[in-house]
């Protein structure tokens, strides 16, 4: 086998997959903004993505905030800069850990469920049935999930930010003997609007990507139960990778301003 031909094949396959995904995303966004939209379906997805993810995201956030306080204390003590702990906790939570951890948790929970549900609908001909019943599957299945994901992730991240800061506060005040008022003042002092906003922009992008990957892999699954299983795995893996790469790109876009 010619190695150059093999590389070429892989490259062409990659281009084809990227093109397919771009077409899918374009069509999904088109149907998400063009009426009719289905508020009932969007509402159901918002509950599914937002409300039912609260426990997981909350737990992740509180322990991240707690461990941040502890770790930065260990570090900053060496420079006698303990008062910076509150700032480190709140900046890390709002700019990075809130969106990224919530994104990864929701990718595992919701992205997988979307891929499994839509994939099952594909292999049991339910998507074909939708089409024959004059209902566009993009409008009925994909658009509500994209809209709900893009709206709910920022809301989840707001909650995660607050809980994370609270975790840091608990450790700082009850374990490291900081004054409660001083800790909270330190938290506010260096926090800027942009810190929170950049985190929420990330969250919206992550929510879109999670829903897009779940729908895309489910929509294109084939070959029975095994195909649906593969779609689920691919949805979670690709969403996680896209979250981490786009996280860097968005950070850089905000950083250079």
């Amino acid at each position, binding site marked *: 086998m010619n190695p150059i031909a093999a590389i070429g094949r892989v490259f062409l396959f990659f281009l084809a997959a990227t093109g397919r995904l771009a077409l899918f995303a374009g069509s999904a966004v088109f149907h998400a903004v063009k009426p009719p939209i289905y508020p009932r379906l969007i509402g159901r997805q918002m509950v599914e993505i937002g409300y039912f993810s609260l426990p997981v995201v909350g737990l992740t956030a509180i322990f991240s905030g707690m461990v941040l306080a502890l770790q930065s204390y260990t570090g900053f003590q060496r420079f006698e800069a303990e008062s910076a702990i509150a700032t480190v906790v709140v900046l890390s939570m709002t700019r990075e850990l809130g969106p990224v951890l919530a994104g990864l948790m929701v990718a595992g929970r919701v992205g997988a469920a979307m891929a499994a*549900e839509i994939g099952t*609908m594909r292999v*049991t*001909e*339910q998507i*074909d*049935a*939708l*089409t*024959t*019943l*004059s*209902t566009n599957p993009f409008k*009925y299945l994909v658009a509500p999930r994209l809209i709900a994901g893009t709206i709910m992730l920022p809301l989840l991240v707001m909650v995660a930010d607050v809980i994370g800061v609270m975790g840091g506060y608990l450790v700082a005040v009850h374990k490291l003997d900081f004054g409660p008022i001083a800790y909270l003042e330190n938290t506010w002092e260096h926090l800027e609007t942009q810190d929170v906003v950049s985190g929420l922009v990330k969250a919206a992008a992550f929510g879109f990507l999670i829903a897009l990957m779940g729908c895309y892999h489910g929509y294109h699954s084939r070959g029975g139960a095994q195909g649906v299983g593969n779609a689920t795995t691919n949805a979670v893996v690709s969403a996680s990778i896209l979250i981490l790469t786009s996280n860097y790109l968005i950070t850089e876009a905000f950083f250079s301003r």
Partner: protein
Amino acid sequence: MNAAIPKIRIRGLAKSFGPKVVLQNLDLDVTSGESLVVIGGSGSGKSVLLKCILGLLEVDAGTVEVDGIDVTRLRGSQRDALLRKFGMLFQSAALFDSLAVWENVAFPLIQGRRMERRAARDVALAKLGAVGLGADVGALNPAELSGGMRKRVGLARAIACEPEIIFFDEPTTGLDPIMADVINDLILKCTREMGVTALSITHDMASARKIANRVAMLHDGRIIWHGPVATIDANGNAHVDQFIHGRAEGPIQMAVLHP
């Protein structure tokens, strides 16, 4: 409508999946008001044929005319208008398992016709009654139904919008002989009472003999024989003969390795 124009006219239809040729140069006419049954072995491309007509799969070549209009290149609202003429009973019934049974039947009314939920519910329960299912079944989840009940709900959903053309994909496969006959009777009742054009595909000869006016046989990607159901026993075609008598020996070779 001009009686000379067939309801569905297919010419030179071809469909392949990668290197695998499923349909090639297939011609078929379905006359308005008739019940045509296409028979053929498993994997011969019967479902693919229906999906090509509906536009669920894109054809590689050929034309599909419905009421004299080529539909293979239709998009958007024109395709929606076309699909309103059709009802389809899928092989696995394809009920939406996130919705209750009555919501499944009411789905084309609520989504397609923008009917009020309450009014759609009444129509749905009436259609369920027409296929012999009570209002109590309407409240169940599709997962709670037996195979025969699923097919009947699928049938009720297919006729909910009173289509002009109904496709039945293996309506009796996987059912016991008595339930199969119940479904056959329902198909007959629907097609006769509503005067619809029916295109069914099956490999169940008892069902084909019962519901068909005309039978066509799909083999090797094309229609190799067609004629009125009464002439099927005197078809003069070795392939058809082998199929309707279910013999392993004959011109049709199954992809089975003989030890």
